[in-house]
């Protein structure tokens, strides 16, 4: 049977067929759908973890106990998980263990473009790089075998286009794998220095064996068209090269890329007059080829950033520019992403915006990152998950030392980011006596990646009900004395709570609490708390609207300014009745629909 699957769905299918017992992840584009798909296989225990380090650690424990296990994360998630990864490389596995890293050449939904192939080399673990959905499935299955055979976690390096493009995949049955017996092995799993030093030798022996394997594996192969020009490529770049250059060149397709096959690359380079290396992100293969004395053409010709799509390859290799129909740029204006109609972040950032001269906003990663855009401009920096409070604390410390500076730091992050690594950051601030204002934008779900449950939502990945992490209680337990909770759709209350925090000279926390408009699963008690949520619409009384446009400063996409009539109207198909614009209007021209 063949089905059309994304690379992410194919990874889940492959792991399922390989008999995986346990999988864990923190959601992150472009990796999220791996665990979402996995969760549908009832034979596998699939979990969301609060962050990637925790996910990988749970997977390590599952492996040591004898199960097959898989962790999935986006490229920057591996930074978070790097600490356990590097030592797990030393201890090796009991049950097979696989790490999926989903990289983002071109940064479609990420803050940087790091090339995680370097992690495989850095951590000294084997790596596979699929080019399409079928390979994603086949390689992850093989990764479990390799993991057990070579006693190492195996990394499968995906990229956005492999994760999110769909192709045909053939299905097989799941093979049930018995648990490997668990035995105490201090000299394998307890990485104190004396044991770590021994394990270091074991890692080197493993690498040497893998150097033999990489020369003969089926994942590294040539495609010959009797050309004197050669192309070496891995991942989706191979598909792009095949598309752009067709049968005019020979290919060395590399699917197993740590360690790289030295002899194979040398032979291929010697047999061709000219060799192009086509790879996204870093010159990973290129530098290896050059190190071994080969003359190759790589990043001097191809762009150092972005995707190596067929048009890029054609432009670089063939000096060919494909012209389409001309765009009339006068007919196009930007369409940046924005808060949804009814987004609970809108009311908070509208009120916070009134303080923009007195404050600096430490930002974080989530839907609220969109507050950097029009009409808010309410984010001074964004570094990584959980960094808002800690960067804010450092900045406030310097501002306080600087006699010319009296601005206050307001640091913002969402509930899922708070659970991810924000708790540590807040602990640092309160422990060190910082006076920043720390906001938890609690929309009851992990929003940006598509409404995944988290430790505050009351549900687990596979749908089971669970405890609801009490954010207010956590904050208080850390030692924060000044904590207030507010409904961000209530502008008067939101304004009051911001003013309250600005008056304080100690660490404070504001928890805004209203669900994401896209959240699907609610417990009964939630439905009581958020009464009549999204059940109404708002409407402009045309005679009362004077066209002052004050409501437009809310940045709501349901508000439409009619330039001819000089009046605002509300799109009834998208308005969900959050009432933020209704409270802003100075002329009482906006009312609830049923009041008409």
């Amino acid at each position, binding site marked *: 049977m063949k089905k059309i699957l994304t690379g992410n769905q194919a990874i889940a299918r492959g792991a399922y067929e390989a008999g995986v017992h346990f999988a864990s992840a923190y959601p992150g584009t472009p990796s999220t759908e791996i665990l979402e798909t996995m969760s549908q296989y009832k034979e596998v225990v699939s979990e969301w973890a609060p962050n990637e380090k925790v996910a990988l650690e749970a997977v390590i424990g599952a492996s040591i106990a004898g199960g097959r296990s898989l962790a999935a994360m986006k490229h920057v998630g591996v930074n978070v998980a790097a600490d356990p990864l590097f030592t797990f490389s030393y201890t090796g596995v009991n049950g097979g263990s696989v790490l999926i890293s989903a990289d983002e050449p071109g940064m479609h939904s990420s803050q940087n473009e790091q090339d995680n192939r370097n992690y495989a080399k850095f951590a000294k673990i084997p790596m596979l790089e699929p080019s399409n959905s079928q390979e994603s499935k086949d390689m992850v299955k093989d990764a479990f075998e390799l993991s057990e055979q070579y006693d190492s976690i195996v990394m499968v390096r995906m990229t956005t286009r492999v994760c999110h493009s769909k192709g045909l995949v053939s299905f097989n049955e799941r093979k049930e794998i018995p648990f490997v017996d668990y035995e105490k092995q201090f000299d394998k799993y307890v990485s104190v220095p004396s044991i770590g030093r021994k394990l270091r030798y074991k890692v080197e022996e493993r690498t040497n064996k893998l150097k033999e394997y990489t020369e003969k594996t089926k994942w590294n192969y040539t495609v010959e068209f009797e050309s004197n020009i050669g192309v070496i490529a891995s991942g989706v770049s191979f*598909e792009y090269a095949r598309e752009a250059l067709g049968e005019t060149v020979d290919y060395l397709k590399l699917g197993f890329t740590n360690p790289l096959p030295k002899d194979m690359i040398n032979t291929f380079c010697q047999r061709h007059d000219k060799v192009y290396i086509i790879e996204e992100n870093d010159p990973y293969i290129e530098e290896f080829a050059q190190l071994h004395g080969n003359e190759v053409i790589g990043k001097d010709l191809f762009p150092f950033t972005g995707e190596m799509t067929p048009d890029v390859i054609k432009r670089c290799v063939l000096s060919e520019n494909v*012209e389409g129909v001309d*765009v*009339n740029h006068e007919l*196009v204006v930007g*369409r*940046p992403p*924005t808060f949804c109609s009814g987004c609970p972040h809108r009311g908070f950032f509208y009120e916070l915006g009134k303080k923009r001269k007195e404050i600096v906003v430490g930002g974080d990663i989530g839907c609220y990152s969109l507050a950097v855009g029009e009409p808010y401009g309410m984010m001074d920096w964004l570094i990584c998950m959980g960094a808002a409070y800690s960067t804010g604390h450092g900045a406030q410390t310097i501002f306080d030392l600087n006699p010319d500076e009296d601005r206050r730091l307001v640091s913002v992050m969402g509930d899922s980011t708070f659970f991810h690594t924000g708790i540590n950051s807040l602990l640092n601030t309160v422990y060190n006596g910082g006076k920043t204002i720390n906001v938890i934008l609690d929309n009851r779900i992990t929003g940006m990646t*598509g409404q995944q449950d988290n430790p505050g939502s009351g549900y687990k990945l596979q749908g089971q009900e669970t405890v609801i992490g009490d954010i207010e209680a956590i904050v208080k337990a850390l030692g924060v004395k000044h904590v207030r909770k507010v409904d961000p759709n209530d502008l008067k209350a939101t304004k009051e709570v911001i003013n309250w925090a600005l008056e304080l000279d100690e660490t404070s926390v504001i928890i805004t609490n209203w669900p994401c408009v896209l959240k699907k699963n609610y417990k009964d008690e939630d439905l009581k708390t958020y009464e009549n949520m999204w059940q109404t619409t708002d409407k402009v009384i045309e005679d009362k609207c004077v066209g002052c446009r004050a409501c437009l400063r809310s940045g709501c*996409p349901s508000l439409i300014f009619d330039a001819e009539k000089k009046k605002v109207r509300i799109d009834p198909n998208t308005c969900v009745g959050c009432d933020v614009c209704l409270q802003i209007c100075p002329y009482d021209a906006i009312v609830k629909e049923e009041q008409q």
Partner: protein
Amino acid sequence: MTTSIKIVGVGGQGTILATTLLSTAIVEAGMDVKMSEIHGMSQRGGSVSSEIRYGEKVFSPVIMKGNANILMAFELMEAARNIDYLKKDGVLIVNNHKINSMVTLNGKVPYPEGIIEDLKSKVETYVIDATAEAIKLGNSKVMNVIMLGALVKAMSLDEFDFEKVIKENVKEKYIDINIKAFNVGLNLI
């Protein structure tokens, strides 16, 4: 010979469902197919696109500029923005519907006028009132399936069994309205 179809719109308009239905139908017809879409940030009211390529053997999942045989746009300005993906002899199918962006909403920059005229002067263009027809059916969201119907008619893809594909890929309570929507689309070209 590989056929390339690019579908563009605004986050929330249902480009992904339209792409899924189309690609599933192509698979059932026994062809090789790849499709590509970008998730994440852009879903929040930003520009979105997805791409389908099918034929005997498909390598790249993405469409190069100047290489799409068909551009199907769920929104007027998105058609204008992405028209450079279309081959000069390609076909544009566009929903006659405007969605303001954050930039035009506040009235500082007007929503551009004259898009349809500009596009018609450049390429073979079908303008479809899909949003209006969807509202007539009682659910503005089925605009995407009306557009799919129009695409199928324009491309003469009648050999694919879309009724079956809709039944297998749409939630039960929305099957009827989507089949109706598909048939409305078929009759709009």
